């Protein structure tokens, strides 16, 4: 199967799963913005997604995307370290045109996983699992009170700072990941590379700022 036994095939898997995750992030960010305007509106969205079989199916598909992206990430990194050989350069200089993020995608990805674990613990565990186990961790909020959980989480400065760090790592991952995925899929040339890089930077910034805005607004409200 060329998607696992050729280098370009493996990269295609990385880029397709990566782009699908980017689309997911876009929807998630837009949904979060609703919380800025209306608590009821936000909880309606939560209720809709919590009680909807399609949404549950979507969650499973999303989990699968993550798992594939992460397994391939570690696999590719291991192969690439082997290809590099055991001997390291005594002196090595990063050329100016090489983005720092592009050489640290795995480390950034690991921060993203850790942030994701925290996030699942803060929200998803309470909101999805609670329906099954009926025992939310954080006080007496009901499982569909997403708004309540946002308020709870961001009133804690430790969580607030961890979320900001997480979002910064995501920003670096995306600024490289987005255009890199286009390059991997072959949709690039000397003209488009600058366009894609520009689009990557703008798109990543908009997504990350959208998430951050919600975190900051709720943190400041609670001061």
């Amino acid at each position, binding site marked *: 199967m060329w998607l696992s036994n050729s280098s370009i095939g493996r990269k295609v898997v990385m880029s397709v799963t990566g782009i699908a995750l980017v689309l997911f992030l876009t929807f998630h960010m837009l949904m979060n913005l609703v919380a800025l305007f209306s608590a009821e509106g936000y909880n309606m969205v939560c209720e809709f997604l919590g009680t909807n079989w399609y949404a549950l199916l979507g969650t499973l598909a999303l989990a699968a995307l993550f798992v594939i992206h992460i397994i391939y990430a570690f696999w590719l990194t291991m192969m690439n370290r082997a290809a*590099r050989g055991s001997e390291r350069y005594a002196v090595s200089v990063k050329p100016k045109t090489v983005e720092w993020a592009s050489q640290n995608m795995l480390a950034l990805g690991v921060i993203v996983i850790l942030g994701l674990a925290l996030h699942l613990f803060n929200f998803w565990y309470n909101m999805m699992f609670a329906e099954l186990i009926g025992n939310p961790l954080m006080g007496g909020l009901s499982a569909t009170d997403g708004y309540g959980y946002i308020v709870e989480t961001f009133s804690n400065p430790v969580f607030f700072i961890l979320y900001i760090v997480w979002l910064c790592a995501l920003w670096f991952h995306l600024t490289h990941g987005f255009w890199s995925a286009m390059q991997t899929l072959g949709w690039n040339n000397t003209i488009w590379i600058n366009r894609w890089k520009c689009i990557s930077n703008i798109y990543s910034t908009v997504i990350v700022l959208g998430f951050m805005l919600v975190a900051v607004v709720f943190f400041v409200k609670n001061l």
Partner: protein
Amino acid sequence: MDKNISFTLKIWRQNGPKEQGHFDTFQMKDIPGDTSFLEMLDILNEQLIEEGKEPVVFDHDCREGICGMCSLYINGHPHGPATGATTCQLYMRRFNDGDVITVEPWRSAGFPVIKDLMVDRSAYDKIMQAGGYISIRTGAPQDANAILIPKPIADEAMDAASCIGCGACVAACKNGSAMLFVSAKVSQLNLLPQGKPEALRRAKAMISKMDELGFGNCTNTRACEAECPKNVSISNIARLNRDFIKAKLKD
């Protein structure tokens, strides 16, 4: 006239692919700025021979930037600090009095060290043999204008063809990926009418050989493009990805 400079050389010495290597340090005195880097190593080797010591082994041939044999990793850059130039085109005026200059071989699993600074780049020949040619009988030479090729395409093919197969792209890459070289060699043919009939087969064959030889998966860091002495562009890699994906979807 350039000034003369004195500096310290730290050079990697290694007896064979499996041997443990180490750095040797040499003091170089009063080297004129218009000495090329390789001439400077010649001077060092003459001194070593006079002292009855073993000279430093390094690869070189044309010494005018066209053969791709010279292959030194100097102060953290393949082919040294100059851009768009090979080691043999690097002059000592680039360095300052009192500098420490560290010289290492290409370090990559695909290019094992033969001795000191010389590495085995025959993997590139094997990739070329897998498909870096056209197998169509082209017949007798015909008029140059019989097959019209738009100028931008001809230029792109020519830029890809400027690759001298030196291996700096692999040496620069944290993933030990040979994609810049392979994409240049595929593009120089796939862009032109004579190379088109076998384009997809070529992309598949050369990639499969590249993977088999243990080169890494390209993650688009662009270190190769920054260090390539011929400024080969990663747009060639995008083209290779495109051709390869097309070929696999067709299968």
